[in-house]
Structure formats: structure tokens, C-alpha cells
């Protein structure tokens, strides 16, 4: 226990008396964490944008005007039974007419033509939303059965097919790129931190050898460096998150303009704060402690 308190004391003493190196190590850690958080925020924004676009894609199934209400409901329930489907809206023929009239209220020719017909020429419409754009094809194929064939006048999917496929490709590419960038970034950050800590310990190699010569055990020498690594990790994560929240206060009003659904990065960070802080703290502690151990291995062979 006495040794433990001495290790803590030496860690704080070393940090204070080597303030320049301590500051530089923390600074590099903060830069690394800020870069990773920026990448995470960009990834989150990309996901949000893609889901916003995905949200606006749906498939409309136009039913013939004389279809019976029970039969239409049967089609709706059938579609709803697919696990890929997240929402099915059945719009009555009256609502369809109303919306058509609203859309064309500025063209008197269309209003005249409808009046001429004397009856509602539209059938009900079933609006389907699936989890992924790729699922639409499956739903459309599932409707190609003789039972429903006479009832279905048209499906709007044909027009969207190319757009949906393209969106799917873009989404996949962005995800792959994000993953690739994250891996490259993690490797670069690891190398920078590894060398920063290695240099910090290398500059103290003479001190380490002296401690060894006066009879300090390996753990007594390692201990302060490991405690310092943990302190650096806590300080750098705390400063990084303070800076991130400060930056988000400035970024969020701009996001409010781009995302009409009220998406905010501050809310995202607040809702996942424990996870984000926890995972980053864990990763930085593992990185710094491991690096210190590796860097010291050589210096301890005196």
C-alpha cells in the first residue's frame, strides 16, 4: 500500500517537473481524439442524411377504382406481414381525389375534366415504406400473384428503381469509406501516440537506469509512468469532450437548417455520452498504458 501511494506521488511529481512533455503528450492525445470525434460526427451526419433520403422514398401501389374495400385491406395486410415493411398507409380514393385537386387547383382544365367525368376516377393507394431501399423489389415481386393482379393498376416502384439502386450503392460506398478512413485514422493515431510516449520515456532512460541501480523494482519504476498514462488519458478525454460540446453549440444551428427533422449532434452526444466517453477513455488508456509498457521494456534491462 505504501509503495502504491509512493507510485502515485512520483507520478504527479514527474508530471509537474516535466510539464513540457506532459503538456505535449496530452496535446497530441487531444488532437487524436478530436480527429476521431470529427470522423464520428461526419459519419453520424452521413447516416442521418442517408436515412433522411431513405425516408423520402416509398412505393405507391395504385388500386383500380372499383376494387372492393375488403380486398384492398387484404392487400394492405398481406404487405404488412413482411418483416421488411415498417409502415403501410392506405389512402382512400376520396383522399386521393382531394390531394389531386389540391395539387392542381391552379389548372382549371383539370378541374373541368374531373367535373366532366362526374365520378371519382381514382382508386385507393397503398403507400409502403421498407427498412432498406433494396427491400422494395421483394415487396413488388410478392404482389405479382394472380389473386391481386386484377386489382392493382400500377406500382410507382418502376420509376424509383434506378434511384433506389443508386442510393443503395452510394450508402454502401459511404459506409465502406467511413470504415476505411476510421481504420487508417486509428492506425495513424496509434503510431503518433506510440512514438510520442516512446520519446517521452526515451528522454528519461537515464533516470530509469538510475532508479534500477538503486534497487527499485520494475513495478516501482513502471508504476508512475502507468499512472501518468491513465492521468493523461482522463485529462485528454475530458478536454476533448469539453471542446466537442463547445464546437457543437456552434455547429448545431446550421444543422437545424439542413435537417428538418430537428437532428442535433449535441443531442446525439448527450444521449450516448456514457458510451462515447467510456469507449474513448478505454481505448486511450489501453493505447497509452500498452505503449508505456512496450517503451519501458527496453529501458528496464539495466
Amino acid at each position, binding site marked *: 500500500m*505504501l509503495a502504491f501511494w509512493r507510485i502515485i506521488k512520483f507520478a504527479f511529481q514527474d508530471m509537474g517537473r516535466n510539464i513540457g512533455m506532459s503538456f505535449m503528450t496530452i496535446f497530441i492525445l487531444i488532437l487524436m481524439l478530436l480527429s476521431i470525434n470529427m470522423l464520428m460526427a461526419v459519419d453520424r451526419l452521413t447516416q442521418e442524411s442517408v436515412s433522411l433520403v431513405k425516408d423520402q422514398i416509398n412505393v405507391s401501389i395504385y388500386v383500380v377504382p372499383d376494387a372492393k374495400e375488403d380486398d384492398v385491406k387484404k392487400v394492405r395486410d398481406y404487405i404488412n406481414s413482411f418483416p421488411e415493411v415498417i409502415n403501410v398507409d392506405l389512402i382512400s380514393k376520396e383522399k386521393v381525389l382531394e390531394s389531386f385537386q389540391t395539387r392542381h387547383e391552379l389548372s382549371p382544365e383539370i378541374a373541368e375534366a374531373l367535373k366532366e367525368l362526374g365520378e371519382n376516377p381514382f382508386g385507393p393507394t397503398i403507400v409502403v415504406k421498407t427498412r432498406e431501399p433494396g427491400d422494395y423489389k421483394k415487396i413488388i415481386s410478392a404482389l405479382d400473384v394472380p389473386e391481386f393482379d386484377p386489382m392493382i393498376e400500377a406500382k410507382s416502384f418502376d420509376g424509383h428503381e434506378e434511384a433506389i439502386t443508386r442510393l443503395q450503392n452510394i450508402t454502401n460506398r459511404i459506409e465502406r469509406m467511413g470504415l476505411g478512413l476510421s481504420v487508417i485514422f486509428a492506425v495513424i493515431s496509434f503510431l503518433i501516440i506510440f512514438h510520442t510516449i516512446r520519446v517521452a520515456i526515451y528522454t528519461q532512460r537515464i533516470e530509469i537506469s*538510475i532508479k534500477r541501480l538503486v*534497487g*527499485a523494482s520494475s513495478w516501482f519504476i513502471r508504476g508512475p509512468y502507468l499512472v501518468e498514462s491513465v492521468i493523461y488519458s482522463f485529462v485528454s478525454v475530458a478536454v476533448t469532450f469539453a471542446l466537442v460540446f463547445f464546437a457543437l453549440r456552434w455547429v448545431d444551428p446550421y444543422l437545424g437548417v439542413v435537417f428538418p427533422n430537428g437532428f442535433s449532434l449535441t443531442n446525439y452526444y448527450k444521449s450516448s455520452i456514457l458510451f462515447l466517453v467510456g469507449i474513448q477513455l478505454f481505448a486511450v488508456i489501453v493505447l497509452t498504458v500498452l505503449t508505456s509498457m512496450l517503451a519501458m521494456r527496453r529501458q528496464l534491462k539495466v
Partner: protein
Amino acid sequence: MIKLHGVTKIYPGSSVALRDVNLHIEAGEFVSIVGQSGTGKTTLIKLLIAEEKPTKGRLEIGGWDISSISNSQIPYLRRQLGVIFQDFKLLNRKTVFENVSFALEVAGESRHRIHELVPQVLEIVGLGSKSTRYPDQLSGGEQQRVVIARSLVHRPKIIVADEPTGNLDSINTEEIIGILKKINEFGTTILLVTHNREVVNHLRRRVITLHDGQVVSDEQSGKYVL
């Protein structure tokens, strides 16, 4: 106290530093080890503090065979010895007091005992008033006295001094040798590796001369003969 039985040390590349050395140093002796550069004096010190292991032979300190000492036991051995180097080897970011107390802290000595012992030892070496200074605020002689205080504070039975006056002027040399002699009078075995003819001749104690890795002379009241 210190026994070497047929100790040979060969470094990689077949460079022989010590060749079949047999020595027996009794408790309380003051022994000077002399010899030209490259004759194995420093290797002998390195073997004694377990910085190196002998290629052949057996080395005992106080009955403890350290020829094949494990890495985890080395700190315990070093806590039994006091080591003084030519280049001082002080911790530059620790004060004089902290440099001396560090040797006790690593051994798990209590805070109370440290605050009792360190000022006493600093008084002995004449640095009682400079305990809050850092090594770079001291002269060479004063730095070497801090090293002596550090090597002395845990009351070792053996002090190994490798060219302790190598970087000092004649006045400081005299002072350092005077302190070592005083320590020896209290019963501590001193092993002094030196090039300084005057120091050896003035001491009139046992002198072991090494040449080409071998003991060529061992005289109880010897002189620097090279």
C-alpha cells in the same frame, strides 16, 4: 563477504573482459582495484551489482550466489549495496533530499524513518543545508557527496565505488576519499576502482591490480604499481 571463484566474463564477439578471477574480500576491508583501461575493472563492478552475469565461475556476496541471480531478485541485491559512479547518476528532477530518500522509498522504508535518516546522512556528507537543491545547482564534489549519502542511507555492508573521484579536483578528491575512509571505519566494506595513483598510495590499504582481465597482484598494503 565477497568471493569470486574462477570468474570469467566473455562479451559477445569473444572479447574476454575477465579471465578466471579468484578473489576473497573480507568484511570491513578497504580494497582498491587498479589497472589500465580495458583490464576488466568496470566489468567486475558490473558483475557485483548484477548488471552483467559471469560467463563462467561463481560470485558470492555475503554467502548469496549471484552468478545466476534472477531479474526479480536484482533489486533486493542492489538494496544491500551502495554504488558510487564517476558520473554521479543522480536524478536531476529530484532534490538532494529526494535523491537520497528514493533509495529508502524503493525499499519500503516508512516516511517517518526516511525523515529521520536522510537529514542525518546529509549532515555526515556536509550537505545538511542543501537538501532542497537540485543536482544541477551543486558542484561536482557536492553531487558526489549526494551520491555517497544515497549509497550510505540504507546502511549497506558493501560500498562499490567506480572512479568516484574521476571528475573531481584534488580538494574534492581528498574530501570524498576522507568520507569513504570514515564510512569504512564504521565497518562497511569499500571496493574502490580508481586510476588515481596518489589516492591509492595515500590509502595504504589492500590493492588488487588487474591486467588483461586477470589479477596480477594482490597486496595487503599495496601501492599503485602500473
